């Protein structure tokens, strides 16, 4: 038999045998909520699942000690019933009693200590080293009381604790990390039932505890389906194959608004877009960007209002300062650069670049935004050559001092404090392209003290300097479009972390 003939027969055989029904219908009838995401859940072990999706997994199948309300940013008890700061480096937590893991084991201080120390150990290479790296040790005072001791003063300790879920020591150690990542066990509102193809199926945890910040789900089954292409997601929303999706681009979201079967909601996030400018001339000692007037010209050249309105869409607004407006310490009353083509050209001429110059620009997120920016720069004579790479390649290039301009964005890992963004881009970090002593001093100091008022003042100083010298060109906020079928109600959060346990059928 020839290869092709054999294939013929085999496929025919397969077709007759495998004519299975379409698996897991979405919707009310099945009490199944199917949600689409662009990326897959890489591992079902929260500690080895990076990115937004990993974060979501942490919320669905696991619990941390403390819970943060996504709308009010208030901290609420979860696996810890109360907590207090004992000294500069130490926090004490009272643990909730009677909480069971999905496999029936009781949650105790042993499990908490195990989980936190797992995250703290660099050998384990957990999803984000910063979240656990500040912990030096965990002292178990009694089965339901622990103390977490940091290496240094950690003003963001609680913010990090929120992201560290508790996993069962006995089970995880006995089956090993590999098996745990396939059949995980946590305490969360949902438990992982199975994984097939692109779907991860979660079922309601019937024994989920009361009294914490999260609640038992109203919906019985939740399916996480990875659909990489956004157009396919749109098609599935229209055809009813899925009930929910987010990050739908503004053009498609506008069209979906007019469709009867779905609701479209636009909501803010922590993510902001900006340009980083190589003011220190790291990429080129003769760089035009070393001249403050050139940087200001670039800032004046862009119509951020138009970009926010038409390209990003929804609730997107231009941002005034180098931070997410809601963050603690985000001082907004700094030098502004509204869209002014004439002023921009004048500054270019004043700096000696009336004929413009060529420069490299790097980007990775939104192509239309990058093109629009290049268009605006073109209009003032800055001829930008686009280098479109993956995120990590762009960051590496910046750290290797190759990038004059980067079209960047940052979500601050959902941390509501300017201390989660400024130290990464300033204060002599590898991504610092300003090397400004005033900013460096202010940011560094604010990271080591606990006095919130003092920190606020320091950040104000830093942000003022950043704006005056136009080290960044802050662009706009990046809100998200949530699209869901009319039959379901999924509350929309302020921080990209959707709480599917609060979803309910209408």
């Amino acid at each position: 038999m020839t290869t092709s003939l054999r294939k013929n027969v085999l496929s025919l055989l397969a077709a007759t045998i495998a004519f299975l029904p379409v698996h897991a219908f979405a919707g009310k009838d099945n009490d199944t909520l199917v949600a689409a995401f662009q990326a897959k859940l890489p591992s079902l072990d929260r500690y080895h699942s990076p990115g937004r999706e990993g974060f979501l997994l942490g919320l669905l199948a696991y619990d941390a000690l403390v819970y943060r309300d996504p709308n009010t940013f208030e901290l609420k008890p979860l696996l810890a019933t109360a907590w207090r700061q004992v000294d500069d480096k130490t926090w004490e937590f009272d643990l909730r009693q009677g909480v069971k893991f999905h496999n029936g084991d009781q949650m105790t201080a042993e499990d908490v200590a195990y989980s936190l120390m797992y995250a703290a150990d660099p050998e384990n290479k957990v999803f984000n080293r910063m979240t656990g790296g500040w912990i030096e040790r965990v002292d178990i005072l009694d089965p339901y009381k622990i103390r977490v001791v940091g290496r240094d003063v950690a003003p963001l300790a609680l913010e990090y604790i929120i992201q560290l879920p508790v996993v069962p020591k006995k089970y995880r150690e006995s089956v090993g990390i590999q098996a745990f990542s396939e059949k995980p066990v946590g305490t969360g509102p949902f438990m992982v039932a199975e994984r097939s193809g692109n779907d991860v199926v979660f079922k309601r945890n019937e024994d989920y505890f009361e009294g914490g910040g999260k609640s038992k789900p109203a919906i019985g089954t939740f399916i996480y389906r990875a659909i990489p292409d956004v157009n396919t997601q749109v098609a599935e929303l229209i055809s009813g194959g899925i009930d929910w999706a987010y990050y739908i681009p503004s053009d498609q979201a506008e069209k979906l608004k007019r469709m009867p079967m779905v609701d479209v909601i636009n909501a803010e996030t922590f993510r902001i877009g900006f340009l980083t400018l190589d003011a220190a001339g790291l990429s080129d000692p003769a760089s035009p960007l070393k001249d403050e007037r050139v940087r200001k010209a670039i800032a004046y050249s862009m119509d951020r209002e138009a970009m926010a309105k038409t390209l990003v869409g929804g609730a997107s607004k231009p941002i005034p300062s180098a931070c997410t407006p809601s963050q603690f310490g985000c001082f907004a009353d700094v030098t502004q650069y509204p869209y002014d083509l004439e002023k921009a050209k004048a500054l270019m001429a004043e700096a000696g670049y009336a004929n413009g110059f060529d420069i490299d620009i790097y980007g990775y997120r939104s192509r239309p935004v990058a093109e629009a920016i290049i268009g605006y720069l073109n209009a003032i004579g800055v001829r930008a050559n686009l280098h479109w790479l993956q995120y990590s390649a762009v960051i590496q290039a910046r750290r290797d001092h190759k990038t004059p301009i980067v079209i960047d964005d940052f979500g601050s890992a959902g941390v509501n404090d300017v201390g989660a963004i400024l130290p990464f881009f300033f204060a002599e970090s590898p991504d610092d392209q300003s090397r400004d002593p005033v900013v460096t001093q202010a940011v560094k100091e604010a990271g080591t003290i606990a006095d919130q008022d003092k920190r606020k003042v320091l950040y104000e100083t830093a942000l003022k300097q950043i704006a005056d010298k136009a080290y960044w060109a802050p662009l706009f906020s990046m809100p998200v479009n949530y699209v869901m079928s009319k039959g379901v109600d999924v509350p929309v959060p302020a921080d990209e972390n959707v709480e599917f346990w609060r979803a309910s059928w209408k």
Partner: protein
Amino acid sequence: MNSRITGSVPAARLWKGPRIPVGRWGLATGVFIIGFITLVAILAPWIAPYSPYEQSLANRLVQPVFMEGGTWGHILGTDHLGRDYLSRLIYGARLSLLVGFGTIVLSAVMGIGLGLLGGYFGGRVDMAVMFLLTVRLSLPIMLVAISLVGLLGNSLPLMMLILACFLWDQFLVVTRSLTMRLRNAEFVLAARAAGLSNVRIMIGEVLPNLVSPLIVVGTLEMAHAILLEAALSFLGLGIRPPDSSWGLMIAEAKDFVFFESWLVNIPGLAMLVLVAGITFLGEGLRAWLAPDSSQ
């Protein structure tokens, strides 16, 4: 079927593809299409109604004149940044043709060079050349191209080089087999007896005889090159904004394929016409220049 298989390369790879009964009519159509597009590309600055770079976010996604909501101000509508689509299409012809032609020149140099070496010297040299061919054919083009996206970012010369690396195989195969036939021809033996160096013989005596079949290969591979560029632009490697080629225009329009499908259909149609034109030209040339050759 009619290609004689020599050397250790399996039959699978040497199949060249049959002729299409195109005849004079097809040749004329091909010439006309290519000629027209080339003319448009050359005259772009004079015939395009707007600059292809002029963006206007307030004017995004305007329909073409033949759809409702369209205006004569923008005959083919505007794209997602408010740029006039007709102008971009006209200017896009330039880069599409440039890429097609430039890539072919590069791949021809590589393929013909290797083919001459392998066909003329035979033996170990030939084995090395055939090994290179086999490796090249075993590489999954798309996957390798995507890997290179992260590696080197985009730049026009680089992209043409990468494309050329995927397109030299036909040049190699044709050159090699014809060179092998000519290796022992009288005029070559005479040249050798006269003391001419091997290089002089390869380039001066053998190569001129290969010009017509190689031209045919060139036109066919040019179509292939243009399509590959479109695919690579889809992946982000290649033409950089705000420039455009038809391939990039199609790629950029991907997210509008449902609701604003003219953004994909218009450059897609242009590309179809171009590829058809090149195909007719190539087949017409083949029928005309080498009507009975089995290659």
